[in-house]
């Protein structure tokens, strides 16, 4: 990555956010910022980057927008057309607090509930992450034209329906923040779990999700779920080295020496910080469960009592069958596979392959081999992911 690429990743979202406020239009802001990066690509290799790259990009983009506005209003005057642009405000306030507010506004506009989740994800990656349309298309395995259309439609809706550029009020913040966190976590999971597609683009998604998570934590340091999400992503990403290599390696079989200790420590510190705020939420609890796993030398040395208690809390907050399924895994360690198996009865998860994976393992531990094999076959039939299917087939052979 060149110096310019690094600055681009870091500052692009902020520059777009400020320009959207100055110009009142996303498309025009993108054009202006793109112009500015083109100038930077031409000038910086000769002059070196300026002392404040973000400030330079924003000022240059604004000047470009003013030039464009002059040209267009002259043309509009000649042709008697209505002006497309409103004149940019004279001096962009580049004060730190104002820029942060703009970034927050842009995040909440990209993740507005009146846009489809797919559109929210695409807009967030495009505007805040600076990913190109082809990059986003490759990451989500859709044709480039489809992704281009998705982005264009979303921007057209923002303009036509006047989706506001503002931070939600305190009373609507929990709902609206939930949508933002869901988008970032979806980007992370897309990069983390899927095995198809371009591996490099996928790694890029994980690091972009973490970058967005860090940005949110910086912008909203008192929102515990924001910290919880960042911690959850860091603790999950810390295990990347132990689970890659084209094969699925479950937690119990991972070489824990390959875990990234620096990421774990950062994640655990965040877990402690958000728990101190005393407003537990689903993301914080999931992060806390991962933090307990990160502390353990192996499965036997894991504090299952604490994990079980955290799952009980999570289930109370979020009574979903998936949470109940994960809780059963902890229950097997605490009260044995029989109790865990009984807890799965009546879960509305028929047809979900994870249920069969967990059941197969519990049945195997109870010595009920035929039933375990039948459950594994159901799991294999239901698994969409090639790598996971291969892993389950090996398990079936080993029974």
């Amino acid at each position, binding site marked *: 990555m060149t110096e310019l690429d690094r600055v681009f990743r870091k500052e692009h979202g902020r520059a777009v956010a400020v320009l959207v406020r100055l110009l009142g239009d996303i498309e025009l802001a993108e054009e202006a910022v793109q112009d500015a990066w083109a100038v930077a690509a031409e000038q910086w290799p000769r002059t070196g980057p300026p002392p404040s790259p973000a400030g330079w990009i924003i000022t240059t983009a604004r000047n470009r927008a003013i030039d464009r506005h002059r040209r267009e209003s002259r043309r509009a005057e000649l042709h008697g057309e209505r002006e497309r642009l409103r004149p940019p405000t004279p001096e962009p306030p580049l004060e730190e607090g104002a820029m942060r507010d703009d970034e927050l506004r842009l995040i909440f506009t990209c993740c*507005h509930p*009146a846009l489809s989740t797919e559109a929210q994800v695409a807009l967030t990656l495009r505007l805040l992450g600076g990913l190109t349309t082809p990059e986003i298309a490759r990451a989500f395995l859709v044709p480039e034209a489809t992704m281009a259309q998705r982005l264009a439609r979303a921007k057209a809706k923002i303009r*036509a*329906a*006047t*989706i*506001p550029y*503002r931070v939600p009020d305190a009373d609507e913040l929990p709902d609206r923040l939930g949508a933002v966190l869901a988008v970032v976590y979806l980007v992370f999971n897309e990069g983390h779990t899927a095995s198809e597609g371009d591996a490099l683009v996928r790694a890029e998604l994980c690091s972009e999700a973490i970058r967005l998570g860090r940005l949110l934590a910086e912008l909203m340091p008192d929102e515990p779920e924001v910290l919880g999400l960042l911690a959850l992503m860091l603790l999950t990403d810390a295990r990347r080295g132990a689970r890659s290599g084209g094969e699925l390696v479950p937690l119990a079989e991972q070489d824990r020496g390959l875990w990234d200790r620096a990421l774990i420590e950062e994640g655990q510190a965040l877990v402690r910080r958000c728990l101190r705020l005393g407003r537990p939420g689903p993301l914080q609890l999931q992060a806390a469960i991962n933090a307990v796993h990160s502390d353990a030398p192996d499965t036997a040395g894991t504090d299952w009592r604490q994990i079980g208690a955290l799952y009980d809390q999570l289930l109370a907050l979020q009574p979903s069958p998936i949470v109940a399924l994960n809780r059963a895994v902890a229950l097997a360690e605490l009260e044995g596979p029989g109790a865990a198996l009984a807890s799965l009865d009546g879960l509305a998860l028929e047809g979900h392959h994870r249920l069969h994976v967990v059941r197969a393992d519990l049945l195997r531990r109870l010595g009920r081999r035929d039933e375990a094999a039948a459950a594994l076959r159901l799991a294999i039939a239901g698994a969409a992911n090639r790598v996971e299917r291969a892993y389950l087939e090996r398990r079936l052979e080993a029974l």
Partner: protein
Amino acid sequence: MTRYLLSVYQPYGEGPPPENLEQIMADTRAVDEEMKAAGVWVFAGGLHPPDTASVVRDDLVTDGPFIEAKEHLGGFTVIDAPDLDAALEWARRTSRATTLPIEVRPFQ
């Protein structure tokens, strides 16, 4: 200001029982009054059922609604609001009053 159309969609067939209907009418009128007091109200109206509709194309007149569907447009309100969030809030109140889904669309 953006002008929005709030469309009320209702299922075909019988409406709510009379005792509920009275409440719904009262609540809907109350939201209308709130809109007028807030200065956002432009126009509103309820429609007769779709089997009272006629379709005209050029010189040809035919009976019936243009689109046959399980739900139909039962009425609408036109409002002027500063942005979509404000329009959605009025739609939320209208939906609660009518107990029906509301589609929000901006005018050109």
